């Protein structure tokens, strides 16, 4: 599928983007020819979605000050400010979330807002909208689009009665039906498909490409990318790292390019104060004890033991997860967004329906009961700060002390179970203590949590957890949406807390480097299962391979070998 035309279909020149002074994309240049399939890979936050948003003219981009650089379609400069302009220019997009009307048939969805209309007098007098639909013609067109994909779906089937895979095909059929579609973006289209469905999709895409449509394909399944795409672009930290023919890259190379190595060096400074030891899974306890309080030395029991946990958290389904966390350890859970890493702590804390066995210091924990989890001296910092973590309309002292008040009966005056009034003085005092200790910037304990900046809100969430004096602290995305200075502060606070109190901490984060800098061990979650648990000192590409669902390549002690490869140059 080489370039058989003289001019590229789409050409990007030095595309860049800043959100509120925060550069997320810089100097991206590449071109796509008709009929070409390009694979776009990168970690969460590498800039993939921002790039898509720019190309698709999403209003987020326009409302935050536009982008740098130029986009040429057919060598003509274009600048989309709404998705509709992009659609009109022939750019189609299949999103990760389905945008289908559930009660409509396949036909109605494929032709949504592009229905075939019968001409009538009324439409001249009033508007096109009072013309009736030409159902038989619509049916024909839908059938053509579905057939192009090479799948067998009845155009009259209702979307809410379809298996998930079909919905994905309907989405794609909708873009195909658009007569002028020449470039198609697919964002993780295979994530919800079964293996055989995914194969059908891949061959359908190849067929489409032969008809001259250019495709940009995003997937975390590297083998798929390699099979399907002629060229692979790797994004990392908002930069285009690689633009190569897919034959020239091995899976391992792609993984390591994605996760990166120069950033690792930067990270090593952060790691310094953690005792770095070659850790082997077998005797993790001994290794850990070096960095922890000596009195914990004799304890061989794990603090938390999870067996076959499943969690029904929308968008973060956990299918079958087993792991152990040692006492006093900082344990990291990483992986791509949507693969279930967030589901694990949320499930353990009882916030979403869950099953399986969880043992806390050897004793079984009742799942699905937040109150029980809290009473067992676990504390939780949610990834959804504004949605779950905070009472935005209430003052800081409420936010910080509420959980402790309700579960441990602190900050109350009166007789338990009969009459207890909150002790606002004690609440404010405790809140003030944490405001000082964590350096929360606010006007006082009575300021509303919603008025603080992201970083300070995160510190309030931490304070809320610390007040509980937990044995185990579960933290999700501790640095999401906060600026760099606050990031370091939050991570340092966690490390310090772990050192001072010997608290076991489980951090879930999308930022692998962050996990590697703070944690002793990191588990990588892939499609609802643990792909592997590695010591934090393992090489970046090992983590990368795990994230990309290539864990089959990992057996036995291979990870030890990979450590030696560090520093080698790949290209």
């Amino acid at each position: 599928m080489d370039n058989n035309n003289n001019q590229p279909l789409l050409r990007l020149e030095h595309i860049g983007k800043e959100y509120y002074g925060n550069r997320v994309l810089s100097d991206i240049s590449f071109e796509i020819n008709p009929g070409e399939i390009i694979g776009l890979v990168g970690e969460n936050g590498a800039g993939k979605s921002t790039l898509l948003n720019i190309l698709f003219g999403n209003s987020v981009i326009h409302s935050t000050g536009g982008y740098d650089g130029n986009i040429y379609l057919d060598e003509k400069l274009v600048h989309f400010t709404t998705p509709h302009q992009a659609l009109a220019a022939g750019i189609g997009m299949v999103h990760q979330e389905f945008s289908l009307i559930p009660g409509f048939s396949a036909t109605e969805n494929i032709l949504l807002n592009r229905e075939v209309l019968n001409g009538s007098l009324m439409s001249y007098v009033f508007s096109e909208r009072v013309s009736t639909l030409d159902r038989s013609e619509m049916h024909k067109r839908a059938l053509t689009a579905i057939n192009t994909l090479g799948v067998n779906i009845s155009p009259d089937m209702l979307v809410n009665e379809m298996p998930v895979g079909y919905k994905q095909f309907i989405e794609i059929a909708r873009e195909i039906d658009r007569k002028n579609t020449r470039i198609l973006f697919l964002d993780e289209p295979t994530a919800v498909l079964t293996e055989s469905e995914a194969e059908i999709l891949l061959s359908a895409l190849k067929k489409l490409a032969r008809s001259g449509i250019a495709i940009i394909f995003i997937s975390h399944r590297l083998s798929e990318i390699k099979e399907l795409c002629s060229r692979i672009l790797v994004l990392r930290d908002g930069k285009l790292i690689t633009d190569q023919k897919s034959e020239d890259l091995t899976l391992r190379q792609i993984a390591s390019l994605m996760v990166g190595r120069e950033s690792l060096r930067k990270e090593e400074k952060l790691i310094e104060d953690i005792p770095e030891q070659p850790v082997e899974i077998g005797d993790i306890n001994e290794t850990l004890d070096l960095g922890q309080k000596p009195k914990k030395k004799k304890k061989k029991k794990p603090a938390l033991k999870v067996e076959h946990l499943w969690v029904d958290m929308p968008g973060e389904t956990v299918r079958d997860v087993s792991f152990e966390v040692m006492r006093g350890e900082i344990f990291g859970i990483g992986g791509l967004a949507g693969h279930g890493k967030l589901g694990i702590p949320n499930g353990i804390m009882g916030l979403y329906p869950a099953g399986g066995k969880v043992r806390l210091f050897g004793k079984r924990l009742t799942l699905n009961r937040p109150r029980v989890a809290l009473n067992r001296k676990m504390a939780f910092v949610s990834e959804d700060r504004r949605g779950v973590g905070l009472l935005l309309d209430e003052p800081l002292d409420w936010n910080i002390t509420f959980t402790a008040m309700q579960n441990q009966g602190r900050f109350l005056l009166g007789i338990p179970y009969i009459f207890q009034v909150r002790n606002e003085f004690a609440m404010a005092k405790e809140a003030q203590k944490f405001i000082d200790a964590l350096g929360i910037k606010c006007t006082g304990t009575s300021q509303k949590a919603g008025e603080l900046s992201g970083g300070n809100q995160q510190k309030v969430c931490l304070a809320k957890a610390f007040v509980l004096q937990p044995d185990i602290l579960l933290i999700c995305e501790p640095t999401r949406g906060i600026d760099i200075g606050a990031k370091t502060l939050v991570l340092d606070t966690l490390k310090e807390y772990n050192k001072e109190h010997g608290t076991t901490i489980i951090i879930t984060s999308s930022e692998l480097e962050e996990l590697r800098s703070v944690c002793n061990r990191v588990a990588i979650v892939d499609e609802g299962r643990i792909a592997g648990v590695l010591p934090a000192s393992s090489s970046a590409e090992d983590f990368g391979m795990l994230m990309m669902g290539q864990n089959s390549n990992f057996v036995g002690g291979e990870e030890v070998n990979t450590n030696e490869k560090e520093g080698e140059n790949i290209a």
Partner: protein
Amino acid sequence: MIGKFIKSAGWPRIIIAAFLLGLFIAAPFVGVNIYTSFNNTLVRFGMNGIMVLAMIPMVQAGCGLNFGLPLGIIAGLLGATLSIELNTQILEWLVKFGTQYKYLSFLSQEFVTAYRQPIGFASAIIIAIPIAAVLGWFYGKLLNRVKGDEMMIATYVGFSSVSFMCIAWLLLPYKHPTMVWGYAGRGLRTTISVEGYWLRILNDALAIDVNEHLRIPTGMLIFFAVTAVIVWIFMRTKTGTALTAVGSNPEFARASGVNVDRMRTISVVMSTILGAVGIIVYEQSFGFIQLYMGPFYMALPAVASILLGGASVNKASILNVIIGTFLFQGILTMTPSVFNSVFQTDMSEVIRLIVSNGMILYALTRKVRA
């Protein structure tokens, strides 16, 4: 500064407050006695205050405005009618208790006869509260199942319970001659006078006569104040705090180990009980128990009052209740007297409709945090 004030208070409130102020200023010029107006406003404030207070628990727990207040009112009406129906029995029981138990020996025949009216009033409230609690509990369970649609369903639960009670008032075996229809000997009358039972029992207690036009109903105001303080303290208990958190962010509350549905039920029970007590206080001042379709639209003024006082669909305080009730009742009393003097016509009904519903509309169309 002024802009910020307007923004936080909202245009409708400012317009209405200015309108009321205008009415008070205009009153003396058109020959309306300011003392009489003030007197009426105070009395109506005391009459309606507790029913407005009934909005607080549900709003704070995130159940929205309690359009189902008539349910609480029905409990109050049952308490009121039963207290009259059973008046003699209750007094007899008390005397019996007085002779049986030593520490109740103050309950002599003389004592009971002398305090017949306060005892009647208290018994109305004591009967109404458990009824309200039971009704409120079921009502709360229902609202937990229909999260997101509470207000509309509350409205119709209120309406259907009122119309159901219409049938019940006809069929319930009340016998007391002052209450049932004279000719049929059964079926409660549409309005029942409480004269001789507990008419103006709170209004007249400790009342201060300032002049011939102004009589401060101290007892009723104290009763309101005490109820308000109880609500205030309740909102500060562990339960009250949890309840507020549920209204502020149910997910946060759940993650903090709070049983969200239980808190919501408690708030609905509280609200229903307050509604029951509220209507009894209203009736003792009004002088009549209004049955049948009487309680039908009683929720709307209460809802409008608390919104007028600055509450939103999900936040309300005691201060909102006091300001709102005063403003709303002030307009209701001032409009007829002033308009009557100026235009020789009573526009109060129209003004009431526009002000109260306009205020509710305004609150409903405010952007809420997603």
